[in-house]
């Protein structure tokens, strides 16, 4: 061994140097590196590359400033897709948060596992099956219209190929995500210790007071997680829209991904890159704003063990 050490070449020296440097670093980063390499190649570099391309002309690397952005913001399809996507989010997200909170409180109080798992089933149903079922249910001569005309004597409604398609999309999104959202609310609900409620009852608080003064303020963590996750998942409702009505659906449900697919087929790289960048920046801004907004009052965040229960209760009652 000693003999080998003496005859170290500069090459070996450098290697031991590197090994020593690595050892002096945090060993745990070694675990991250394989994943990091793949992540950089398939996610991070593409993200940076999209930004770069959004300032270039077409496939070439010719820099032409903000021209792509000017083009997309004058593009009627882009505006339509943006308006539809925003409209979808503004309507769907509050609705989903509200409905799933009610269900979560119900399931949390009754511990009803049938309801809990039934609401999770839509997560397992692929979008193409949804498309088949929705067709039979919502077609002009479908089952829902049978119920509307036969039982309620209302004129049949054209659900899939009119403005109403938007309604169906909202419904689909709610159906698909209600169980998921319910579980995330339940994370917050189960973190609230029971003795706070008991203390409040002794003080004479009714169930509504308890809900608004104890439950809601302690759900901020869930609210943040859920708004972020639902916002991100709202981009995926395209699946159902695409499988129900293809590349050119009714105008009311023409979404970002439709536009992207159509541009992609025409290889409109500049437009695609600019629109992708707009979405990424938008996402980033919304995430940052959500965090600021929800955690504005640092003190009344999720229940912290270090605080006395009564103290927390008093604080929330102020």
């Amino acid at each position: 061994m000693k003999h080998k050490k003496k005859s170290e070449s500069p090459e070996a020296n450098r290697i031991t140097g590197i090994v020593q440097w690595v050892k002096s670093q945090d060993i745990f980063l070694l675990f991250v590196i394989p994943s990091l390499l793949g992540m950089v190649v398939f996610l991070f570099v593409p993200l940076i590359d999209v930004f770069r391309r959004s300032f270039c002309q077409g496939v070439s690397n010719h820099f032409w400033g903000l021209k792509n952005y000017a083009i997309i913001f004058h593009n009627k399809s882009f505006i339509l897709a943006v308006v539809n996507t925003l409209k979808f989010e503004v309507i769907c997200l509050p609705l989903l948060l509200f409905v799933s909170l009610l269900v979560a409180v119900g399931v949390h109080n009754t511990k009803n596992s049938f309801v809990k798992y039934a609401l999770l089933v839509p997560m397992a149903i692929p979008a193409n099956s949804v498309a088949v079922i929705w067709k039979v249910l919502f077609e002009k001569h479908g089952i829902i219209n049978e119920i509307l005309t036969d039982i309620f004597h209302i004129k049949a409604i054209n659900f899939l190929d009119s403005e109403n398609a938007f309604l169906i999309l909202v419904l689909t999104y709610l159906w698909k995500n209600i169980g998921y959202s319910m579980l995330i609310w339940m994370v917050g609900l189960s973190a609230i210790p029971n003795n706070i409620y008991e203390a409040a009852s002794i003080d004479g608080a009714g169930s509504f007071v308890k809900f608004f003064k104890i439950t809601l303020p302690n759900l901020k963590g869930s609210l943040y997680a859920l708004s972020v996750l639902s916002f991100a998942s709202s981009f995926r409702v395209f699946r159902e829209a695409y499988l129900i009505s293809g590349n050119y659906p009714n105008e009311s449900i023409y979404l970002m991904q439709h536009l992207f697919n159509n541009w992609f087929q025409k290889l409109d790289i500049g437009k695609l890159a600019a629109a992708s960048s707009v979405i990424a920046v938008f996402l980033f801004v919304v995430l940052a704003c959500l965090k600021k907004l929800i955690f504005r009052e640092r003190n009344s965040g999720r229940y912290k063990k270090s605080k006395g229960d009564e103290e927390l209760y008093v604080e929330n009652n102020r």
Partner: protein
Amino acid sequence: MWKTIGKLLLYGIAILTLLPLILVATGSLMGSGELKSLISPVFGEGDGYAKWHFIPLYPTFKNIVELVLDTPEYYVLFWNSVKVVVCILIGQILFAVPAAWGFSQSKNKWSKFLFPIYIFCMLLPFQVTMLSQYLVLNSLSLINTHLSLILPMVFSTFPVFIIYQSFRQIPESVLDAARVDGAGNFQIFRYIGIPIGLQGILAAMVVGFLEYWNMVEQPIVFIKEKTKWLLSIYLPNINTDNAGVAFAYSFFSILPALLIFWFGRKLLEQGVMMQGELDNEK
């Protein structure tokens, strides 16, 4: 009084949510004549509106047999889907589990810097990276192969986040005790990290299976040949004559996901709930 109303409402919502599944299951057991008489108005034939009943008059396995025996496309697509999903999940175990361990143990400034980037990438919609991913995959000449679906998903940062949450729950004292007893970092990972985090790893796999079994955006952009398609993007051409087979097809593409859902329901619950910890970042 209020309690009964609340309970009824809960059950109502639950049954409404299950309705589509019940529809598919009953439909796939109906004969073609029965289906024709029920839903032919949907396809512009006959008058009036489609009807449904939840107990098939003449239950038959004919559609299912026809799908399984006489529809070779179904087989090809089914095995394509299985292959892609299984490869993604194996790849995720190989890459995401160590990464999650690294993030949960490291107090280094680099990991504090990288983790939020992982979370941001987890939330990024496919649209944003679609173009550049296509270009990367194209330069590796992977377009139109299943690897184009597998590789980007293997490095998805979503399982890292879920598994990280389960590693983080390992108490510091346990790890310190192991260190005092002379366990190396890899030993700690192998004999403490993995067994304790196993639940979280499995939870990530269950959530992942449901997600990738239902993959739509990637295959319609990256795969051109129909023989390489996945079950999730094939739309059975439903019309009056083959409605039965279309229902059977839907039922069978739901079935694997439903089985995983049923046996992994506790894990799924856990996996989703771990995403609820998003506010406790690094």
